[in-house]
């Protein structure tokens, strides 16, 4: 309880809006570069790393809801809010064990997070949207489906084709940012000792 109170300090609450804005702005840059990635959870991962799993989870949850309010699209945002929360939570857990101190551990943590994310998104895509996400990614689902695979399995594999790589790069970028930031700034956060 004491720990949680420290995690949800004023600085954490001031950080969440910035983190969500980072998610959206970096997502935009990636789109401008026409890269086959999302990188729309870098802010969430950063919060999880420096403020712990619960603040990370809250950031992910709110990020997807706000994304819907800004762009007026509820389909690919609000239903996946639990997945975004899990990403922030896992970033916090990996950070607790010092995985953001070594670059390859950060990459590995990201990849594991990506696998969990695709496991969690598949049933949401399947039960809510009949197995499609309304983007070019659906070609992958169709390809697996045409091989006689069940819809749920095809959705999971479609996630696996993108999520682990995407989250591994996101975690690596957060690792690099943590190395580039002066200690003076990192020390302000409640879990500074885990990432320094």
């Amino acid at each position, binding site marked *: 309880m004491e720990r949680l109170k420290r995690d*949800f300090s*004023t*600085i954490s*609450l*001031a*950080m*969440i*809006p*910035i983190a*969500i*804005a*980072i998610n*959206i*702005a*970096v997502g*935009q*840059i*990636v789109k*401008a*570069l*026409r*890269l086959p990635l999302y*990188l729309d959870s*870098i802010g969430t991962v*950063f919060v999880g790393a420096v403020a712990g799993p619960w603040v990370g989870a809250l950031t992910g949850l*709110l990020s997807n*809801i*706000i994304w*819907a*309010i*800004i762009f*007026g*699209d*509820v*389909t690919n945002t*609000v239903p996946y809010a639990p997945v975004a929360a899990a990403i922030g939570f896992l970033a916090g857990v990996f950070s607790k064990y010092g995985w953001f101190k070594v670059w390859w551990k950060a990459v590995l943590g990201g990849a594991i997070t990506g696998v969990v994310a695709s496991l969690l998104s598949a049933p949401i895509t399947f039960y*809510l*949207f*009949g*197995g*499609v*996400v*309304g*983007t070019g990614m*659906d070609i992958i*689902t*169709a390809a697996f*489906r*045409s091989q*006689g695979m069940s819809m749920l399995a095809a959705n999971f594999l479609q996630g696996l084709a993108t999520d682990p790589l995407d989250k591994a790069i996101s975690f690596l*970028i957060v690792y*690099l*940012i943590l190395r*580039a*930031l002066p200690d003076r*700034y990192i020390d*302000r956060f409640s879990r500074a000792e885990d990432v320094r």
Partner: protein
Amino acid sequence: MSGTYGLYVVRQTGIHRLHPLTKLVYVLVCLLIGWLIPGVWSPYIVLLIGVVPVALIARVLPEVIKNTIKTAIPFAISLIIVQGLFWTGGTIVRQLGPFSLKAEGLLFAIRGTGRIILAVSGFLLLNYTTRSDELMLALSQKGLPNSISYVVLSTLQVIPRFQRKANTILDAQRSRGLETEGSYLIRMRALMPLVVPLLLGSIVDIEERAIALEVRAFSREGAKTSLLVLHDTRFQRAIRWLLMLGAMAVIGWRFYLWLAPRLA
């Protein structure tokens, strides 16, 4: 997008003046009914009876239609391809080269598209007619922590600034000769010089924001006074209760439909 208020469209209509919770509950109940009642056309019926007339009265129907179509069309195309063409078994309606269109898959796609149209249009209706600050205040009065409202509202304020910042960095790095077009590798290499300045610059700002909040007694316990005043009426409160009771009846009925064949 008008910054602070999200997608809010300023109009002087009765719908805009309703209490935010009345609109929130109404839209959620419409969604629930459209999704839960069995049948291919039920989402479309709820859309025509529940969403379209309200959007018409609120004078936001053209906006709702335009943006719903933008989201729904890619979904519809995907659903028809993934479910219509790759439905296992089923009755073949038409042969298309090596693929065949199945009736069951098509019906599934029609229902799925209806559900998406209903969800998107209902959400847009709520957002076009409700200021986010009023909605957050209403939710705070029902027990949502104040800090959550702060986070949501200040994010809505910060985002336009960040989008400008991202564009400035993109222009600045391009003018220094950074290649942002070309092969996959070239574009990948441009990623870090664009992302890192944005991240470092904004993380450094966090502390300043926290101090600004503390100076304004952000973490002080106790009741807070809001400059906004929400108008609620006994009639609207009654309507909200009725809507919620109706929703529970539909959930109960749907649960019975699901349970009955399993008990028999």
